[in-house]
Structure formats: C-alpha cells, structure tokens
C-alpha cells in the first residue's frame, strides 16, 4: 500500500485516494477543444442534459406506473396525471424530452455530416453515435408502449409484425418476441423491463464509449482544420490564450455549453407547459382496444422517415429498403471516399448531396404521417428511391472530389 501523509483539506484527502486533481486535469482542464467551433458543437451537452432529465423524470414516473394491461393506462392518465402532486409535470417533461431528444440527435448527426466529423480517425465517434441513435430508438419505442393507449398497442402490433420478415413468414419469431399472438401482458412487461432497465444501461455504457472515442482524435472544428493539439496547448498554458487555437473544456467551452443549454431549456420548458401536445398523439389517450384499428397507424415523428421508406414498396422490397435505411448511416465513414475533412459548403457536389439528403428526409417524414393515398404515395415512393440512390451515389461523387 502507498504511503499516506496527513491531509490538510478534503480535496487533498480525496486526491490521495482518488487522484481527483489528475482526473480534473485530464477530463476538464487539459481536455483541449478547438476554438473555432460554433454552438452546434454544444448539442452533445444538450443531449447529455436531456438524457439526465429523462432519467430523473423516468424514476419519478416509475414510482406510480403499473406495468399491467388493465392498470397501465389509468396509472399514467389518472394516478400520475391527476392524483400525484406534480405527476403531470414529470410526465410532460418525460414525454416532451423523449421527443425533443430526437430533434437534437438529428441536429447533432447532420452537424457531423456537414462538417465531415466522421472522417478518418473519427470513424468510431460516428459509429458509437449511431449505436446510441439505435438504442435511443429502441428506448423510445419501448417507452411508447407503456401507457398502453390505442397507438401504443397498434404501433406495437405493426412494428413486431416486421419481424416476420415478409414472405419468410417467421410468425413464430413474432410470437416469441411478443410472448403472445397479439400484444398482451407478456409483451407489456418485457417492454417495461427493456425501457426502465436494460436499454438505459446500454445507453449509459454507449455514452461512456462515445465520450471515449473523442479523446484521441479530438472534436472536429468548423474548418476541418488539422490542429496540433500539443503545440497549441503549450501556447495556451504559456498564457497566450488569444493566440492558441485550442481552449480548455472547462470552464472555457463549458461556459458556452451552459449558455446554449439555458437557451435550449427555455425552448424545452415552453413546450412542456404550453405545447406538450405536439409530443403526444391524441389517439394514445384512447385506451388500447385490440378489436378496433385506428384509421391511420403511424409512428412518432422521429421514425416517420424510415417508416416511409418501408411503406411505398411491395412487402419484401419494402423490408429490404427499410433494412437498408437502418444500417446505411453506419457505413457513412467508409462510403465517403474523399480525403477532405471540410464543411460541405467547400466540397462541391457533396454540398448538393447533403442538402438533398436533408430535404429528402424531411419529405419522407411528412409523407410518413399522411395516409398512403394518391399523390402522397407517389411523392413517398420518389423520396424513398431518392434516399436509396443518394447513398449508392455517395462513393462515386466523393471519389472524384478535389482536395481542398
């Protein structure tokens, strides 16, 4: 065992046992961040904050929620919303955060794509981020089941049906996942477990990994500039802070993070108190009824684009297209053949690719909610084909890109 001197302060006492000074230096003070990054780089902190809100509000909801098909709906809509003091607040905070977190994830993702933050050296940042996206999706879906409303039930029916894999008709697999022929008690209880335990655990582990992947390649910057972090850090430490291209994470960038978070919180709480309905489908305020299909079944807004890639095609090609949409983002670092790490605006045709992708996904999102009839089906089909074509084209257009 090491030799311990008498400590003269709590800090010193802790430092002897936990090396908190080293930790603080490595994680905060000498964790170097490029100076030329804009507020879009604060989205990570916004996401961490929102995830925190989700965990805390979720814990409070968990105290009163009943994972039972006969009680679930009323435990949410009556017990939590009306009987428990401020239960409505936790519930609205949870529901709105669940929706808003996806908006921020999409902004975070498109920021990464725009500035080329997934490129050589940073592939694992991108991949771990995509893994987070997938686990957030599973988390959102399993949570959506819990109030056991009409849309919960029918969305559960539709999504689990996908696992029959079209013409393969693996109905046994679907029943195995549901634990029943239709969504029932077994289904609700296992999704409850996934939502409150297993998936949050996976998400927390992945957040740790995602942070870890940043440590060596460092975060990208607005110009895609390659920075010699050691050299610039020396300048900073020598007091030439105005000259150095890097800043400390804490409190330099943290102060900016916190300002962005505070603006975000104004927007978020405005939604919580006065516009929570955008995040809550009115149909889900009807209790689940297995004998009555809602006239239109659609997922929450953040899944609409991938739902619309499934829908306009015949059964089997639709599933293949859907599968394609789920995995293709993972491959982005390998499909982009250009050596440039630069904002899309400086990368020629890639800029067109970026904006078309963004608009196409918005079109898919809107069409995904509308009933699949007439002109909406046609627009949906075209948008889905464009989506697939964009990804097939990506390696070709980036290969020809000139170095900037």
């Amino acid at each position, binding site marked *: 065992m090491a030799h311990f001197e008498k400590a003269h302060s709590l800090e010193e006492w802790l430092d002897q046992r936990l090396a908190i000074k080293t930790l603080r230096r490595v994680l905060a003070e000498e964790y170097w961040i490029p100076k030329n990054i804009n507020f879009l780089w604060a989205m990570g902190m916004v996401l961490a904050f929102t995830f925190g809100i989700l965990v805390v509000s979720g814990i409070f909801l968990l105290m009163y929620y009943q994972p039972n098909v006969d009680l679930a709906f009323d435990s949410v809509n009556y017990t939590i919303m009306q009987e428990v003091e401020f239960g409505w607040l936790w519930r609205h905070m949870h529901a709105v955060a669940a929706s808003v977190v996806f908006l921020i994830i999409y902004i975070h993702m498109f920021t990464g794509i725009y500035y080329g933050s997934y490129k050589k050296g940073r592939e694992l940042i991108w991949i771990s981020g995509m893994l987070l996206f997938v686990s957030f999706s599973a988390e959102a879906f399993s949570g959506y089941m819990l109030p056991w409303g009409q849309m919960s039930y029918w969305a559960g029916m539709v999504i689990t049906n996908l696992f029959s894999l079209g013409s393969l008709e693996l109905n046994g697999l679907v029943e195995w996942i549901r634990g029943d022929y239709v969504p029932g008690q077994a289904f609700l209880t296992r999704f409850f477990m996934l939502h409150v335990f297993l998936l949050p655990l996976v998400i927390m582990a992945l957040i740790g990994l995602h942070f870890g992947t940043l440590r060596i390649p460092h975060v990208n910057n607005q110009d895609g500039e390659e920075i010699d972090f050691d050299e610039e850090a020396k300048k900073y430490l020598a007091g030439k802070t105005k000259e150095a291209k890097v800043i400390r994470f804490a409190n330099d960038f943290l*102060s900016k993070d916190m300002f962005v978070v505070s603006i975000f919180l104004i927007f978020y709480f405005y939604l919580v108190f006065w516009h929570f309905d*955008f995040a809550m489908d009115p149909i889900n305020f009807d209790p689940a009824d297995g004998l009555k299909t809602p006239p239109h079944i659609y997922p929450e807004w953040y899944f609409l684009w991938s739902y619309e890639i499934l829908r306009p095609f015949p059964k089997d090609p639709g599933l293949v297209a859907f599968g394609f949409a789920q995995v293709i983002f993972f491959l982005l670092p390998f499909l982009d053949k250009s050596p440039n790490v630069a904002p899309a605006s400086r990368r020629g045709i890639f800029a067109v690719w970026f904006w078309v992708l963004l608009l196409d996904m918005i079109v898919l999102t809107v069409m995904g909610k*509308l009933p699949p009839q007439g002109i909406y089906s046609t627009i949906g089909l075209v948008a889905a084909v464009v989506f697939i074509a964009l990804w097939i084209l990506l390696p070709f257009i980036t290969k020809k890109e000139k170095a900037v």
Partner: protein
Amino acid sequence: MKELKILAVVVFFTLLTYWGVEPYAHSVMHPHVESENFAYNDLKDTGKKGDAAKGAETFMNAGCIGCHGVKSQGMPAPMDPIAAAQSFGVNPPDLSEAGAIFDEKFLSALIKNPAHALKVEHKFTGGRQHPMTAFYGLGGDIDQEVADIVAYLKSIAPKAEEITPKMAFETACGRCHAVHYDNWTQMGEKPKFKYKKDELLYDAKVLDYQDHLTKYMGKLPPDLSMYIRSRGEHYIKTFMENPQNLLPGTAMPRVGVTAESAEKVLEYLTEVGDSKHAERDSVGKKVMIYLFIFAFLAYLWKQSIWKELH
C-alpha cells in the same frame, strides 16, 4: 453573426418539419368542420309563444310522465334505470333541467318528431319506431301545444347560471357515457360502499344497464374521461352540436344543447380529464422567469471567460 445564421437554418428546417407532421398532416387527416353555432337552422321556428300554465296541463295530458320523471316537481321517474333501459334501450332523462340545458327550437322539434330532431332517422327505418313516442297533439293547434309544453319546461327549470358543468353533462350526456375518472356511471354517480358485496351488486347493475344500452346503440358509447385530451375542444364541440358532421351514420343522437350548455359540458370534461391545467400554467410562468434569469447569468459567465480567449 455567423452563429445566428446557422441558428436560423436550424430553426427553419425544424419548423418546416413541424409544420409538415403537425398542422399540415392534421388538416389532411381531419378536415376542418365548421361550427354551426348551436343555431339548429335545419329546424323550423313556429313562431308561437307558449303559455307555461297551459303547458303544465298539456304536459300531464300528453302522458310525458309515463316515461320521464320531473324530480323538482315531485314527480319521480316511473321506472328504475335498469327497467327503463330494458324497455327503451336507454334511461329517459329527468326533465327538471331540460328547459335550461336544451335549445328551445330543438325541444319543440323533439316533441313532435324525436328521430328527426335527434338526427337518427337512419336508424329507425322499415317501421322501427324511436322509443320516444312522438306527440300528435291533443286536438287543438299542435304547434301552440308544443310551445306551451316547452314554456312549461323552461318555467320549472333553474336559471342558466344555476346549471353547473356537471348538471349539464348529466342531462346531456350522462345516461349513455360513463366518466370513470369522476366515478360517473351511466346510472349516475357510483356511491361509496362499505361492503365489497354491495359494490359488486351495484357494478353488476351497471353492467346490466350497459348491456341494454349496447343493444340499443349497436356499441357501448365510450367512456369520456380522457376525451378532452384524445379529441380536443373543437372536436367535442362540433361533435356535440351535430355528430353526423364528423361521423356520418353514427348512432349518437344530436344532443340539442344550447351554446351555453355546450360550454359547460366542455368545462366539465376539462375538469375531469385535464384537472391540472391551471396549475400547469402558473408553475410554467415561474419556471420561465427562473430560466430567463439563468440564461442571462450563463451569458454573463460565458462573456467573462471568453473575453480572455478571443
């Protein structure tokens, strides 16, 4: 400046997506239904002025109390709710407050031709009769007789301001719709029971009533506890004044309430389904004040640190 431009781009695409999946999709999936302002324009106004005293007599002679109770005038319902539901499909309303809750023109039309006033003629074809017998008159001017009955009902009804939201709901909706978040069953408010056995007996009676109602309506009318959230005010209001506009062919009758009573029904449904709306608003304002101060301090902190960096 550059950051503001980036923010504008982010906000623009966020709003575009929002517009597409919320207001736009909603307008496609739920075409707007204009309110008829509870005017009942399709019903004829006979222009007759009723006499309440004569109306009281006509009311008795017409045999209304064979099915309806008028509790406030010491006339109890002739049958208990279950027996009534067995005979008519639904328990006929007590008429003590009818004059205040229902529209005058609607009441006149209802007395003369119930299926027509209720807009449920599509259900009573091929010789099937509406359970409420139409009033064919006592031999005089039928329009005058009807006007007298309506005048009588209005004279015994409480004043409009004495009608509570719950009273309006009870008379207009409460015999078909349960509201279990307010302990309301189609047979009335569920009492508190000391013994489980008594409660079960009561519940069995409600199930009995619901069976008759289901047979009459084709399906059990839904529990309205969460309708303020699942349908929203505009839908409920336009649905109440004319169900056929939103759900053509539905078995639900036009209720015939006045605009004022409709507001009270909505108020009741809001209190039951969204009881914390006032608290939400007041807490929200305080949280906002806190957040603006927080944002201001965060801005000052950022400025103080970054002036060394730029």
